[in-house]
């Protein structure tokens, strides 16, 4: 071990200039690899010797791709939305001491008053970077970087304690699962610890199937060792010999980074036989799942590793009989990262944040109709309004927030007048949503709530495994009724049926997928009953989304008379002469919306 630390400090040859480029799935999608290429070219051209550091992502997605420059005598400076052709100019100005065009400096430095510090930006200041402290700062593929920031010191501390003491610390921390339901982490550990079994397993659930949530991917791509360290501590606490990290095949970079981390940890003796000289032996395998939403559910996840499909009835709970029938603890990526950080920093640093019943911080993804989409880590109990308006900057001009969808397809919609609610497990549940993995999708006045409910039901219907009837048939019927509402053929009784059916699906489904599937319908029905009724009674969609309830017209000012719409209209409702504005015959129009899609000039408008 001592060798490891020496190696760590041995490589610390800080040259004059450090360039940090974030390489995570999101920044790569925004073009970070081209920026990296252009930086390397620019450095060669400028004759600068620099260390280019490939970091993870810091979660401020709206800045992608960003770069950070650091040099002696100059403050570390962040540049946002960098285009490849700008790289050379930025670097040249920076080394000359000209920080113009920079977004922010990481720390205050005298003589550079013009550029704000990162901390003066609300989206940074209001965050508590607890588990995400290293994200976007260290090289995720370097264990030395992680060791330098106190990595694996938590594991060392835990291994000096007895197993029960480790579980006791987690109990005292009050840590609850960050994957959804908020189940106390220590309790699962305790149950599995007490089982008499020669073999036990721990699994890190990195499935993250909720659309709109990507904090686990970001965390595992940017600081994979933290997740691994938490998993090893969990394995030690329950007496497991083997761990799995469950990642879906659609997130290849996340799996790659975790595999690199496992290999490095093995080389440094944090994994394998007799870890750090104790008699605890443990190894980890990264499992690439073939991807199914229901795999986020514990028993379906276990089935996937066993090469099968579909969830099963609980109890028995996995903590007593899980993978291959052995006691198994399943924790979320973020939960395990919290475990590692708690052991590194001590309890107080963790428990000083959060509410009475839910301690610590949580990462939230704020997307949809906001200016600054990103992943923000805030104390549990932060108001939704703070996240949406102060951190994420509120909706773009001309739009207003209608609702915030929390918790993905299993969650619900919180209407705009309840934005002062605090984000914690119990509050959200009592208002018909769930914390889930922590995805917040901001819905604005251009979105229709019936359409949103229909979207989520379509999603769950496609993901339903078909094993139990309430979910297989019930969700289908929910979808059919919603379709009726959206096409204006429903009655007010149908709305009552929606509620009744939703409630019985929740009570009678086999697993959590069906048990939460009606949530998006029930919560929109609860808070946006007016909008549903407007569809049913007035046959009108106020947001002009439901295509059957809107009329289509051609704006003569924009129409250039190309005739594309008339050619593609399936009922020949459009007529006109080439070169002149075309017209839609509303009595024949079936509102299929094809003309809107086909028009190259955006002349077809909804009325």
């Amino acid at each position, binding site marked *: 071990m001592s060798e490891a630390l020496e190696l760590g400090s041995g490589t610390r040859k800080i040259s004059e200039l450090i360039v940090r480029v974030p390489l995570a*799935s999101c920044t790569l999608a925004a073009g970070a690899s081209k920026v990296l290429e252009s930086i390397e070219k620019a450095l060669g051209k400028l004759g600068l010797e620099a260390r280019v550091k490939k970091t993870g992502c810091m979660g401020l997605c709206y800045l992608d791709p960003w770069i950070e420059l650091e040099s002696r005598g100059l403050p570390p400076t962040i540049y946002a939305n960098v285009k490849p052709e700008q790289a050379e100019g930025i670097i040249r100005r920076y080394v000359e001491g000209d920080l113009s065009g920079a977004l922010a400096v990481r720390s205050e430095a005298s003589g550079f008053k013009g550029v704000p510090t990162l901390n003066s930006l609300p989206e940074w200041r209001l965050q508590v970077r607890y588990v995400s402290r290293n994200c976007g700062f260290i090289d995720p593929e370097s264990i030395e970087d992680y060791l330098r920031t106190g990595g694996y010191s938590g594991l060392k501390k835990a291994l000096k304690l007895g197993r029960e003491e480790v579980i006791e610390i987690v109990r005292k921390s009050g840590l609850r699962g960050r994957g959804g339901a908020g189940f106390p982490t220590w309790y699962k550990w305790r149950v599995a610890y007490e089982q008499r079994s020669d073999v036990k397993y721990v699994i890190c659930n990195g499935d993250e199937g909720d659309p709109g949530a990507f904090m686990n991917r970001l965390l595992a791509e940017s600081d994979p060792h933290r997740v691994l360290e938490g998993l090893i501590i969990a394995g030690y606490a329950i007496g497991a010999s083997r761990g799995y990290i469950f990642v879906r095949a*659609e997130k290849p970079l996340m799996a790659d980074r975790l595999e690199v981390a496992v290999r490095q940890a093995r080389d440094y003796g944090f994994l394998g036989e007799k870890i750090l000289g104790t008699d605890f032996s443990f190894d980890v395998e990264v499992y690439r799942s073939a991807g199914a939403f229901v795999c986020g559910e514990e028993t379906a996840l276990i089935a996937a590793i066993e*090469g099968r499909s579909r969830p099963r009835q609980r109890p028995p709970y996995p903590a007593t009989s899980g993978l291959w029938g052995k006691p198994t603890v399943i924790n979320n990526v973020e939960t395990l990262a919290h475990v590692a950080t708690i052991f590194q920093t001590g309890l107080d640093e963790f428990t000083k944040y959060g509410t009475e019943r839910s301690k610590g911080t949580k990462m939230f993804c704020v*997307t*949809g109709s906001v200016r600054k989409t990103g992943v923000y880590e805030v104390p549990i109990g932060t108001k939704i309004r703070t996240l949406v308006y102060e951190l994420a900057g509120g909706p773009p001009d001309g739009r207003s927030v209608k609702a915030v969808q929390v918790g993905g397809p299993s969650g619900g919609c919180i209407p705009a007048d309840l934005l002062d609610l605090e984000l914690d497990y119990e509050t959200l549940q009592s208002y018909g949503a769930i914390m889930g993995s922590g995805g917040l999708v901001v819905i604005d006045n251009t979105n229709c709530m019936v359409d949103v409910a229909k979207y*989520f039901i379509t999603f769950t219907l496609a993901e339903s495994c*078909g094993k139990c009837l309430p979910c297989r048939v019930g969700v289908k019927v929910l979808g059919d009724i919603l379709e009726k509402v959206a096409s204006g053929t429903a009655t007010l009784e149908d709305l009552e049926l929606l509620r009744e059916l939703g409630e019985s699906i929740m009570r009678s489904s086999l697993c959590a997928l069906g048990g939460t599937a009606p949530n998006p319908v029930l919560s929109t029905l609860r808070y946006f009953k007016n909008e549903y009724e407007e569809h049913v009674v007035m046959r009108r969609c106020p947001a002009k989304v439901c295509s059957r309830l809107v009329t289509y017209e051609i704006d003569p000012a924009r129409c250039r008379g190309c005739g594309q719409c008339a050619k593609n209209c399936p009922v020949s409702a459009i007529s006109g002469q080439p070169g002149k504005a075309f017209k839609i015959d509303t009595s024949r129009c079936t509102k299929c919306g094809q003309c809107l*899609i086909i028009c190259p000039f955006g002349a077809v408008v909804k009325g």
Partner: protein
Amino acid sequence: MYYEQSRTYLRTPQSGAVLDPRRYLSVVDRVICKYGADRSKLINMLQEIQREFQHLPRQALEMLSVKLGISLSEIINVATFYHQFRLEPVGVYVIQVCFGTTCYLKGSSEIYESMRKVLGLRERENTARDGTITIEKARCFGCCSLAPVIMVTSSDGSERYVHGRLNVSEGKRVVLDYRSKALMKLKGLKNE
């Protein structure tokens, strides 16, 4: 609804080119050598077979079922349950349109429909008849800040592109770009 998908798959004859059976056999044999005749490694085996053929050919699955001593329907059950697996052959490029919440709210379904329209796809058809492009709906890529997003992968897995912040007209342009690229590739293959 994957259970419907598996029913139709078992009933309809295989589409796409049928290769020499020895080719399927050699891949299946290699996969079984690697993982052993172990039922619990079925997902890994299917992943490997798909890597070879870009989809799961019926013939290969039949051979696998004999070699593993499990029924074909059990294999189809697993293959249709997980999203990664494809039962139909795909075009030179596969365009996945993200249907995550954020992308959907920002209009990905219109982009999807217009892309299908450009290729002249009929109902239940996902691949252009000239074999150039396959269009699929995908679940969240986790790039919600770039919504609406599409991911383009070449069927041999060697190229991967992500296009973000799209709209309908840009979507159409992207499809046509990849289509002409794919046509070049197909032409090149023929000339060889």
